[in-house]
């Protein structure tokens, strides 16, 4: 930075000298160099914004944080609270279909796909819920107890993330607000007033999770086995086929 500023001073001085001497060619070339240096200086002060990551990467990031299949609304809320908040509901609507189209045209060419959660009963995609293709299949199966265990699991993960951020000296207000909203329906997780305390939320959520987890896991795994043996790969990812990208 200092070097740049010095160079700018020198250049301006040289321009004055050259123009006093009537050396127009030199003035022109010095001016061009000065403009170049000035531009570099400006960029050093205000770096141009990095091009935004595409929506699918944001969704992937949010889902990875949550660790479980999630509805569009939750994904948007997580993105707003912890990341840049560039996802909108409208952008999510077409996403799953685009992913399916891409997978069908050249399978497994991407490191991950944003895919569907599957209803335990029909192995059909659960409406409006997204998941990540690299997760084990049973994590993407939604049985009767899964909405509950998934809520508890994702709440714990959000709380843990907030603990990490707090240790690093950050205190994201939006994140605490999100945690409070998620925890308010878990018995014993929040006191009456103020933002939720991550430790307390984790303890309460784990206590309830212990009640449902085993039954839910068993069911999900059994269904996942059935799905793995019955369904083609594309249907394991995007659901057994009532409406698929090619027919929609």
């Amino acid at each position: 930075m200092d070097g740049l500023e010095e160079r700018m001073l020198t250049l301006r001085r040289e321009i004055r000298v050259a123009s006093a001497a009537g050396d127009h060619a030199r003035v022109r070339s010095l001016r061009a160099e000065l403009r170049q240096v000035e531009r570099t200086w400006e960029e050093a002060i205000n770096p141009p914004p990095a091009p935004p990551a595409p929506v699918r990467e944001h969704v992937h990031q949010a889902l990875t944080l949550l660790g479980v299949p999630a509805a569009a609304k939750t994904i948007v809320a997580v993105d707003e609270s912890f990341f840049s908040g560039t996802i909108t509901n409208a952008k999510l609507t077409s996403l799953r279909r685009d992913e399916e189209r891409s997978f069908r045209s050249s399978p497994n060419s991407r490191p991950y796909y944003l895919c569907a959660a599957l209803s335990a009963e029909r192995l059909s995609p659960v409406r409006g819920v997204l998941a990540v293709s690299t997760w084990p299949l049973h994590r993407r199966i939604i049985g009767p107890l899964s909405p509950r265990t998934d809520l508890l699991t994702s709440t714990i993960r959000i709380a843990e993330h907030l603990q990490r951020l707090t240790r690093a000296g950050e205190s994201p207000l939006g994140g605490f607000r999100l945690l409070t909203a998620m925890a308010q329906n878990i018995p014993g997780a929040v006191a009456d007033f103020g933002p939720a305390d991550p430790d307390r939320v984790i303890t309460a959520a784990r206590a309830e999770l212990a009640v449902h987890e085993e039954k839910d896991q068993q069911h999900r795994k059994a269904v996942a086995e059935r799905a793995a043996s019955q369904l083609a790969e594309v249907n394991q990812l995007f659901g057994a086929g009532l409406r698929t990208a090619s027919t929609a």
Partner: protein
Amino acid sequence: MSRLDALRGPSPPVDHNARSIAALAANPACHRRAVLDAAGIDKGKVVQHLGHPMQFGQSPFALIRSRQFKAIVKESGGAHLLRLLRELLGLAVEEAGYRDVEDVDEHAGRALLRKHTEQLLRSAAENRGDAATIVDHPLLKLNVAGYDVYLEPDVIAFQAQGKFHVVVIKTFAIIDDQAETAKVSAAAREAAVYVHALRVLFEQLRLDPQRVSHDIVLVCPENFRNFPTARLVDVRHQLEVLRRQLERLARIDTILDTLPPDLSLDLMMDGDTPTRSAAELGAAVSGIPARYAPECLSVCELAYFCRAEAKACGSLEALGRAVRDDLGGIESVSTVVNLATGAAVPSDDQVAVTERLRYARRIHGEVVA
């Protein structure tokens, strides 16, 4: 083609819902409404064409708000509901299973959804270990006046310790523990229809209908926030009224038998435009006996048409039940006026009423003199 389809013409039938059944039961003696509803006729379109557009219904704003609030109550497997029911009914922590009937197939027909509802409810009722505690989007069928109607409650039938509760989600606020009485009773009337339909279903499934609770769970926003709160509302009274009125509703066949065989209420739609002459359609509607009362204004789409008709023929009914009962036995406004002014001679059974009328007229005259 059934007689009812013939009455309606080629337009698709309009579905009943709990609100319309509650309204139907609110005026059980009205054949006009019974016939139009049974035939699935779009009453809103009819009155509009007749020049008496209805003045009620939910604004688009209210509908959006209602959709949003329902989504909040139901999100994450009914997380808010679980909290509320744990508080309200002491629901055990184990009971947290959520099933969505519509998961069966996004494009399933109603018959399939109804069958799926039955399966879910039956298995929830028969094995308590089954995890279906909340059943979302149930679809029920109810026979009303000899005619099957589907009820699509966006309520959730909820099982707590073996008892099933109907949940109704409304957007009017509960403020400092208080809600508007009129709105609560409207919600209770609607919920009673669902409770009734569920009990009927339980009977068909050979389950004890008493396992459907007469307490319904009313979920509303608390203090104008979007935060859901809930109350139990006892709908025994509404159930009793509903049951009696459904029974009293004449079977639709017997009403149809009294109507002219070639009667048609077809709007003769050409795209979105009715082509049938309003006068002709009006005459057809008037051909079905009605029983107008001021209460109709808040429950029936045809109210403005029927009111105009009742006024035109000087019917006492138009002045309300209280007036009609007070003037028992007299049919029209003009007879009342004639008796009061002495222009008509009362018959034997009108003597007492006539005396009261003349007395009232004298007092009125003194007061305004």
